[in-house]
C-alpha cells in the first residue's frame, strides 16, 4: 500500500523552515533538502515517479519534523520513500551490516570482546571495511566485555515485587555499553523497582528503517509490539535509556507501518529513562536530595531523537535538579552520526561537518566531561571533540552512590 493512504503532504506550505534547520543541508549542497525530497516530491511519487536521487543524503535525524510549523511528517516521507527505493535497488553489504547491528552483535556472541575488538579495529580490518564502504576514520564502538553483558541479562526472570519495571537495553547498550544499562537498573532499584530485562525484545528496527530495510524493520516491529503488549497488559512500564529506541517503540511503528493495525498501540507503555525518572521525582518516588554535587561542570548535547520525542531535554532537566550541579547545554542541532550515517564512506565528512558546531561548543564550555542520552551521539562526541562522554544517568548514579 502506498504511503498516501495514511500520510499526505497537504499541510506543507513549502515555507522552507525545515530547509533552514536541516543539519545535512547545512553541511552539503548534495542534499536537495527535506522539503524537496519529502512533501514536495511526495506528490510526484504518488504519480509513480522514481525516487529523488539526493534522498540518500537524508540522515533521518528528524530536525525537519522538529522545526516544521505544520506538523508534516517529513522524515516519515523520506524513510518510506527510501524503503520503496530499496525494494527495487539492491543495497550494499555495508548498509546491510550497519542496519542489522543487532543481528551482527548476536553473531559475535560466542567470542570474547577483546578478540572481536581486535578483529574489528585492527588496521587491516578497517581497510577491508573501508573498501566495503565503512569509512576507515569512523569511530566504530568497541564491544563490551562479556561479563558486563551477562550482568545485564542476569535479570531475565520476572521478579515478584509490587513495583516492577522492564528494561529494554537496545543494541547500543546491549553490545557496547551494558554498564549504562546497569546504571539505569541501579537507579530503578533505588526508586523501589524490581527490574526485569526481557529476552524476547529484538532491535527496535530504526537502523533498518534508516538503511532502507523496511520489511526487516516490520518483522522487528511485530515482534516488539507483541512483547510490548505483554508488558502493557501486566501494567509493567518498559524503560529504555536510548532515545532512538524510545522514539521507535513508542511512536514510529504506527507512523511507518500504518497499514499494520495494532502496531504502536502499546507505545505509551515505553518510557525514555530520564523522562521516567523525572516523573518518579514528581510523584515523590525518587529523591535527589542526597545526591552530592559534581565537582566539575559538564557539557550536554540533546540527541535529535530525544528532542523529537517531545518530552524535553530530560537528562539535562534531571541533572539540573541536583543542587550545585552545573550542566552547560551546548544547544547545537545534531552530532552528525545519526546512528550509523556518519560511519559510511561518503557520509563521514558530512557527519563531521554536521557535528562541528557541537564539538566546538563542547570545547568552548571547558567542561572536562560531556553528557548525552544517545549512545552513538556519545561515540561521535568523543571522536569529534576528544572529550569523554557519558549517559546522564551514569553520572546521576555516581552522584547518588
Amino acid at each position: 500500500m502506498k504511503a498516501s493512504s495514511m500520510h499526505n503532504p497537504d499541510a506543507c506550505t513549502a515555507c522552507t523552515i525545515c530547509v533552514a534547520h536541516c543539519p545535512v543541508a547545512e553541511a552539503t549542497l548534495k542534499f536537495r533538502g527535506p522539503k524537496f525530497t519529502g512533501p514536495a516530491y511526495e506528490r510526484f511519487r504518488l504519480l509513480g515517479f522514481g525516487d529523488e536521487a539526493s534522498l540518500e543524503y537524508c540522515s533521518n535525524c528528524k530536525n525537519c519534523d522538529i522545526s516544521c510549523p505544520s506538523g508534516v511528517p517529513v522524515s516519515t516521507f523520506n524513510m518510506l520513500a527510501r524503503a520503496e527505493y530499496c525494494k527495487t535497488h539492491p543495497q550494499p553489504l555495508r548498509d546491510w551490516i550497519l542496519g542489522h547491528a543487532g543481528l551482527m552483535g548476536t553473531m559475535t556472541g560466542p567470542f570474547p570482546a577483546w578478540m572481536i575488538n581486535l578483529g574489528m579495529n585492527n588496521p587491516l580490518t578497517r581497510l577491508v571495511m573501508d573498501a566495503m564502504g565503512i569509512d576507515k576514520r569512523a569511530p566504530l564502538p568497541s564491544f563490551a566485555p562479556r561479563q558486563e553483558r551477562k550482568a545485564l541479562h542476569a535479570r531475565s526472570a520476572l521478579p515478584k515485587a509490587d513495583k516492577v519495571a522492564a528494561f529494554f537495553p537496545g543494541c547500543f547498550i546491549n553490545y557496547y555499553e551494558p554498564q549504562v544499562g546497569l546504571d539505569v537498573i541501579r537507579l530503578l532499584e533505588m526508586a523501589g523497582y524490581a527490574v526485569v530485562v526481557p529476552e524476547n525484545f529484538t532491535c527496535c528496527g530504526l537502523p533498518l528503517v534508516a538503511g532502507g530495510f523496511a520489511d526487516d524493520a516490520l518483522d522487528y516491529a511485530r515482534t516488539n509490539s507483541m512483547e510490548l503488549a505483554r508488558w502493557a497488559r501486566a501494567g509493567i512500564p518498559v524503560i529504555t535509556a536510548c532515545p532512538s529506541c524510545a522514539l521507535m517503540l513508542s511512536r514510529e511503528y504506527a507512523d511507518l507501518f500504518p497499514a499494520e493495525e495494532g502496531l504502536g498501540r502499546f507505545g505509551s507503555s515505553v518510557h525514555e529513562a530520564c523522562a521516567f525518572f523525572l516523573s518518579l521525582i514528581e510523584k515523590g518516588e525518587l529523591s535527589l536530595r542526597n545526591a552530592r554535587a559534581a565537582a566539575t561542570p559538564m557539557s550536554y548535547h540533546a540527541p535529535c531523537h530525544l528532542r523529537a520525542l517531545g518530552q524535553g531535554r530530560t537528562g539535562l532537566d534531571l541533572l539540573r535538579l541536583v543542587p550545585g550541579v552545573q550542566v552547560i547545554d551546548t544547544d547545537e542541532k545534531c552530532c552528525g552520526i545519526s546512528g550509523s550515517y556518519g560511519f559510511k564512506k561518503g557520509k563521514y565528512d558530512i557527519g563531521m561537518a554536521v557535528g562541528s558546531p557541537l564539538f566546538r561548543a563542547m570545547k568552548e564550555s571547558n567542561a572536562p566531561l560531556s553528557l548525552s542520552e544517545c549512545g552513538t551521539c556519545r561515540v561521535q562526541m568523543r571522536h569529534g571533540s576528544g572529550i569523554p562522554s557519558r549517559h546522564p544517568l551514569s553520572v546521576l548514579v555516581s552522584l547518588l552512590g
Partner: protein
Amino acid sequence: MRHTQVIVIGGGATGTGILRDLCMRGVSALLVEQGDLASGTSSRFHGLLHSGARYAVSDPDAARECITENAVLKRIGGYCVEETEGWFVLTPEDDPAFEPVWLKACRDCGIPATPVPLGEAKRREPNLHADARAVYRVPDAAVDGFRLVWHNVMSARRYGGDALTYCRVEKIHTENGRATGITVQHLRGGEREEITCDFIINATGSWAGNVAQLAGIDVNVAPDRGTLLAFNHRFTERVINRLRRPTDGDIFVPHGSITIFGTTSVPTDRADDTTPTSDEVLALLQTGKALFPKIEEYRILRAFAGTRPLYSPHHDTGRAATRNFVIIDHAEQGLSGMVSVTGGKFTSYRLMAEKTCDHVCALLGVTEPCRTAEESIIPAPSPALLDRAKRLFPAAGLELAVARMGDDLENAVTGAEKDPWKRLILCECELVTMAEFEAVAREQSSSSLNDIRRRTRLGMGTCQGNFCALRATGALTEQNLTWGQGPREVFRQFLEERWHGIRPLLWGNQLREVELERGIYGASLNVDGECGPVSCAPPDDGLGKSVGENLGEGPVAAPSLPSPPAAAAPLPPPVITEGEEPCSYDVIVVGAGFSGLTAALAAVRRGKKTMLINRGGGAIAIGGGTIDLLGYAQGAPVAGDPFGAMQALDADHPYRLLGTDSIREALGFITALADEAGYSYRAYGNGANVWLPTAAGTMKPSWLTSPGMNPEHILRAKSFGVVGITGMKDFSARMVMAGLASCPQFSGRDMAAVTLPSPLGQPESGLRDTTALDLARFLDTPEGVEWLTRALIKEAPGKETILIPSILGTRPDSSLHARLEEATGRHIIELHCPPPSVTGLRLLGILRAALRRTPVSRIENATVTHATVADGRCVALHTAQGGETTRYTAREFIIATGGFFSEGIWAGPEEAREAIFGLPVAMPGKNAGAGTHEASGQVEERSLPRFFGGSRHPFAAAGVAVDSSLRPVSLAGEVLLHNVRFVGRTIGGYDYALEKSGSGVALATGYYAGSRA
C-alpha cells in the same frame, strides 16, 4: 492585408482541432482567439477523457462517440493523455437498481465495463470509501486540456497554419450574403487588423452566440456553469466516477500531481461566468464524501469554474440539455461562408473538428480526407534529442518536460545546453526548469506569467506561486522579457489570478498558505506599498565621503532607546528549594517564535522558573529579521514618528493596549540582547521609520536594523550597483534595479547590475539550487569572505554603494559587514530575500545564544492539545505524544502559538478558534454566530476581491481578543483566563502584513508578558 482560406475563431479544443484538421488537408487557415489558447472551457473542466460510460444510459449516441474518440485520443495524444483507467463505484447512497440498467447500456454502446472485486478495489484505492457496494472498470483516462490545445496548434503550425492569441474579433464582414473576413483588435498591441478569407468557422463554444451576433446571426447557446476543485495531491490513482445518473460532484480525476473533482451544473447567462463560490465548494465537498470520506482533510489548492456550451434551440438547460455537438451552416439563415460549431464535449473535440472540416471542405471543393485520427498530434522526440535532454534534466523533470513542451522541447534543450544554469528548477512544486520556462517565455504568444503557467504548470502546485512568482519575474527581468511592465506588475498580476481561485476556500491549509504569501509579499517585501514617504532625503552634499570616514562615525542609535533593563544580566544556575514540587514552573511559554522566545527570556531573566514548549521552529527563519514597528497606519505610510502614529490606531490594537513606554522597553531589551551576541540593532531613521530596499526592488519600512541593512548610503549615493550571484534564483540584480529605478527618490541615479560567478560549483555537478542561506553559510567561512571580497573588488561596478542579497553570514555578527566595507572600500547594503531568511536566522541566533545561558526547560516537538482550566485560571497544559499525554503545571502561562500560519488559530469554513483553549476568534464564515459577533456570512466575506491593493482583508486581523495585560477577554470585556497571556500573532486587532508591524508586536507583547508573568 492578410488573407487566408479559412478563419477559425476560438482557441479551445474544437477550434485548434479544426485548425489542425484543415492544415493537414492542405487548407490555409488562421485561428484567432480573444484570450490565451485554452483559457476558456477547454481548460476549465475535470480533465476526464470519457469512455462514454457516464452517458451510456442518458445519451447513448454521445456515449458511442466517446468510446470511439477515447481510443483515438489515446493513440494520437500520447503526451496529453494519462491512461489511468476509470472506475464506477456504487456507494451505499446510490440506487442499486441503476447498476444493471447502466451495465446493459454500456454493453449496448460497446463500452467495456468489468467488475472489480471489492477486496482489490480497497487495496488499489485505499482512500476510497470502504463501504463501496460495487466497482466497475472502464477505459476512462485523464487528459490535459491546456496541453492538448497547444499541441494541436503546434501540429497545425507544422502544416503551415497559425494561431493569433489576445486577438478579439470586432467585426465580421459580409458581402452579398457571404462572409468575407473579419476585423480583429490585437488586445496587447492595441492595433486593429482586417483579415479576409473564403470561410469563417465560429468555434467559440459558450461564446458562439456572441460571435455569431457580429454577423447578425442568432445561435442559441445556453452556457452552463460547472465548478471544480483542484486538490494538492493525488489521492486516487485512477478516475473515480459515481455509479448513478450523472449529477453534481461525482467525478474525481487524478491529474499529474493533483486531483480534480467536479462538477456542478448551473445555467448562466454569461460565457465568462467563471468565479467559483464558497457555497459551491462546500456543496461539492459534502457530495464528495460519499466516495472519499476523508475529502475534508485533503487540501484544496483552488476552485475554478467553466461554462459548458450547451446548444439549446429549444431552451433546455443544465443536465437535461444534450451533450451532443451541432454544426450550423448559416447559409440556412441567409449568410453563406460561415458555420458555427458548438455543444459537445472535450472528448469528442476531434470528431467535431472532423465533421466541421468535412462540411467546410466540401463547400470549398477540397477533397483531401481527414487524417487527424491517424497521425500523432506531437511525434515522439527523436532519440538524439531525447539523449540530449537526458543529460540536462533530472529523471523526473525529463518526463515532465518532454510531455509539456511538445515541439518546444528542442528550444528548451538548446537553452539548457547553452547555459547550464538553465537547469535550475524554477517552480519546485511542479518541477518546472528555468530552460522550459524561458523557452515558453520567449514565444510570441507569451506576454504574462499566466500565459507561461498554462504551458508549463508554473505556480499550479502547492505554494500557488508564493515562491516562483518573484523568481520567475526575476528570470524574465534578467532576460529583458517583462513585456513592457515593471517587475511588480508582472508578479502581482500572476498572484492576483491565483487569488481568484483561492478566495472561496479561505480556510485550513490554504489559508495558511495565504498567510505565508502575505508574510513574504506584504510584511517582508512590501510589494503593495510605496517607495517610502515623500519626504525622503534627496542626495545632499555629504556625497562622496570615503567609507573610512563614515565607518569612523559609527551607527547612530535612536535617542529614544532606554538602556537595557537591569534584569538582563546573566543568571546564576537556579536554586531548588527543598520540598518544592520540582516539575512545576513559574511560567510556561508555548511557542518558540519571536514572541515566545522573547517572553521566555524576559521571564527567566527575572528569575522565574521557566519552561518553553513548542511545536515547530517558529516563523523567524522565514521572516525578515528586522524589527518593524509600524510602517503603515490608516492605509498610508507612517511619515514621522511611529510612536506618535500608534495613538491613532484602533483601541484594540496591541500597541494601544500596551502603550509606548512598554514598547520602548521591549526595543531596549532586544537591542541589549543583540549587543550581547555581537550584532547590532539600531534605529537609523532619526526618529522616523527607515525604508529598506528589498530583493523585489521595493522599499519596506522598518525600525531597528543591523548596520548591514542601514540604507543611509543608498539614499545618499549618486551611484550604486546591485550585485547578484549566478544560480541564486531568488535574487535578480536587474529586477532590484528596475524596481528601485521606478522609485521617485532614486530617479536619475546612476545604477548598474552585475552578476558574480557562483562560488558554489556548477549545476552539472548535481548540487542543489543555491539560496541566500547557502551563500551565507559559505560566508561563515574564511574562504567565503575571501571570495566575496575579491569578487566585489574585481567584478562589481565602480559604484560607491553596493546592494547585495543578505548573504553576509548566518551568525549574528556585525563585524563581517564592517570588515567587508573596509576591505572593498565601498558601502555595502544587504537586501532581505525571500525564505529561507538569513537575516531571520541571525535574529534566531541572538535569541538562542541568550536562551542557552539560561536554565529554561525546553520541550520541542510537542503539541499542546488542551488545557485544564478551573475558576478562570489555567492549571495545566497537556501535550500529546504517541497515544498518551503529558501534563505540565505552572502559575502563569504565555501563549505564543502564532496565527493561522503556525496554527495558533485554526479556521474551518464555518468558524475560527484558538488552538489550545478553544477561544472564539471573530472571523466571517458560514455560521460565524457561535461565540463571535459576526452574525453570518460567506467565506468570501473573509477577504477582499483583490489580494493586493493596500486594504485590510477582514481575516487579516482575526485573533484572540485581549485586555491591556494581554489576558483573553470575552466580547463583553470580561477576563476569561486570569493567569494566561497571549502574545504575537495569536492576538487579534492588527494586520502585520499591511502595517509592517509583525516583529514589533511580537517583541512588544512577548516582552510585556514575560516581564509581568
